[in-house]
């Protein structure tokens, strides 16, 4: 069953179509990869889906419910949460307090929230950082903190925006394992990533965006053997 349906979504910034007429479904329990060159409109699509701004056109349907115009906090309460490509730690709060903020979406008790937070800190293997200030963490751990905090809101679907960006191979590998672990627990995920090898390994399906439009969609094998995808990437080299 489709947990998330994206129907003809367009987003204009002045004259620029950052997303135009993008449609696809995300099914329950799967990992949907979202790839495309820099500036293709991947982050913009996440922003439209999670209510950061409403799409200019089209519909986003989550669990059968139309989301258009719903604020991010309402979207989160319905069970959809995202991480930020440019990480957003609550710098002056400790790691556990950061994750507790997420957990407090589901409970009013600090005690319960702390337990929920510790659980997610364990999932991302950051127990040794529990009482560190988030602002002082290295980038790899900031990325993991984003994931733990999002997980603490008890989502049904998790949207990850380049959680491996800027990480070294060992750290990336750890994130890949983390994403696969999360899948094991039955959570649906949508993952933006530039690292082709990684996205091939983890995705059940992949959507390719270029210049705001959906170029193609299919299994990882179908996508990499598609000549259009190859030329889109070779035509526009990226970091």
């Amino acid at each position, binding site marked *: 069953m489709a947990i998330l349906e994206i129907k003809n979504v367009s987003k204009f910034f002045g004259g620029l179509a950052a997303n135009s007429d993008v449609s696809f479904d995300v099914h329950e329990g799967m990992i949907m990869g979202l790839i495309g060159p820099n500036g293709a409109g991947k982050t913009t699509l996440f922003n439209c889906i999670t209510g950061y701004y409403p799409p200019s056109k089209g519909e986003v349907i989550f669990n059968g419910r139309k989301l258009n115009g719903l604020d991010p906090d309402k979207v989160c309460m319905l069970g959809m949460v995202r991480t*930020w490509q440019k990480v*957003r730690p609550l710098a002056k709060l400790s790691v556990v*307090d950061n994750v507790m903020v997420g957990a407090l979406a589901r409970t009013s008790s600090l005690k319960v929230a702390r337990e929920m937070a510790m659980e997610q800190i364990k999932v991302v293997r950051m127990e040794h950082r529990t009482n560190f200030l988030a602002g002082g963490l290295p980038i790899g751990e900031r990325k993991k903190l984003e994931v733990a905090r999002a997980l603490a809101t008890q989502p049904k679907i998790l949207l990850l925006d380049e959680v491996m960006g800027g990480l070294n191979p060992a750290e990336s590998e750890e994130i890949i394992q983390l994403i696969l672990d999360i899948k094991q627990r039955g959570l649906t995920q949508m993952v933006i990533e530039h690292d082709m090898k990684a996205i091939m390994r983890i995705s059940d399906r992949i959507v390719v965006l270029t210049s705001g439009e959906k170029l193609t969609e299919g299994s990882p094998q179908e996508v990499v053997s598609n000549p259009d995808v190859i030329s889109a990437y070779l035509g526009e080299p990226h970091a």
Partner: protein
Amino acid sequence: MNKTILKSAFNILLVVGLLLIPRYVESPYALHMMILLFMSVAQGQSWNILGGYAGQHSVGHAAYFGVGAYTTMMLMHSKGVVPWVGVWAGMAAVVVVALIIGSICFRLRGPYFVLASIAVAEIMRLSAINLTPLTNGAEGILATEIPAFKIGATVVTDFVTKVPFYYIGLFLVLLTLAVTYWVQHSKLGYFFQAIREDQDAAHSLGINIALYKNIGLVISAVLTSLAGSFYGIYVGFVDPPTVLGLDVSVQIMLICIIGGMGTIWGPVLGSLILVPLSEALRSNMVTDLLVKIGMVNADSRIGIFLKENLSHAHVLLYGILVVLVILFMPDGLMGFVKKLAARRNREAV
């Protein structure tokens, strides 16, 4: 564990000590200074909840201070309503003002709240000047006597000495401290700080930004209004500049900037610095001191200049103080103290 016991023991001793002071200190001036200190701590603590914890910097808290003070005084003066009833009317009035500002500004991104907070305080000040039938205009309202506080037929206090005001002031300090402590140790405090640190992150984690900013504003405004009502009945006089002027707003903010925003002890430290400082300036203590130690001749031109002008120089001095604090202690005195303590701990290990 030991540390928490020590801490609570210290706090209890402090409160008991403060409760006992009026028994042993008779000097009205000393009590007056303590009352000013209490008022400052209560003001700072109230601002801190919204500004320090939720990161919404109001430059117009005089609006809530002044509306609280005026409401209580107007009701007492024209309708004979006793202050401890008028106080509630003051709180109700500031809730209305706060919700009007909040519901408009907190939907918008950007510095609208800061700007609107200044504007609203100015509107209140101008209204107080011009709504003469209600407020007695620029002359202000003078309360010649405060009705005795009775429970049933027993007179609890008749407000003749400063002692009852001392205890009310102390109560206000404890109240604002307790509210801050409660905020800090509840979901509210987490949401406030998340909004302060990163509004978009907070929003995406399920926090209703506008709602929680409004809650912070209402709590802060109500407590500030209490301090205002207290000021009104203590001084027995309100007029537009002393309770609704921009420098009232700035002073409230400075208590937190200097002491340390978003910490429980910040406003206390800030008040311990600002209240004696402004008193020293007001009473020309600095000039007198310079004369006494022989640095300045009282009858020389410099001496006369200082005597005439230094008491008005508090705004300049505050400015210098703020620049110094922002340059050298961006997290205020409290942040500075914490940093020192952290360094010492690290060295001890």
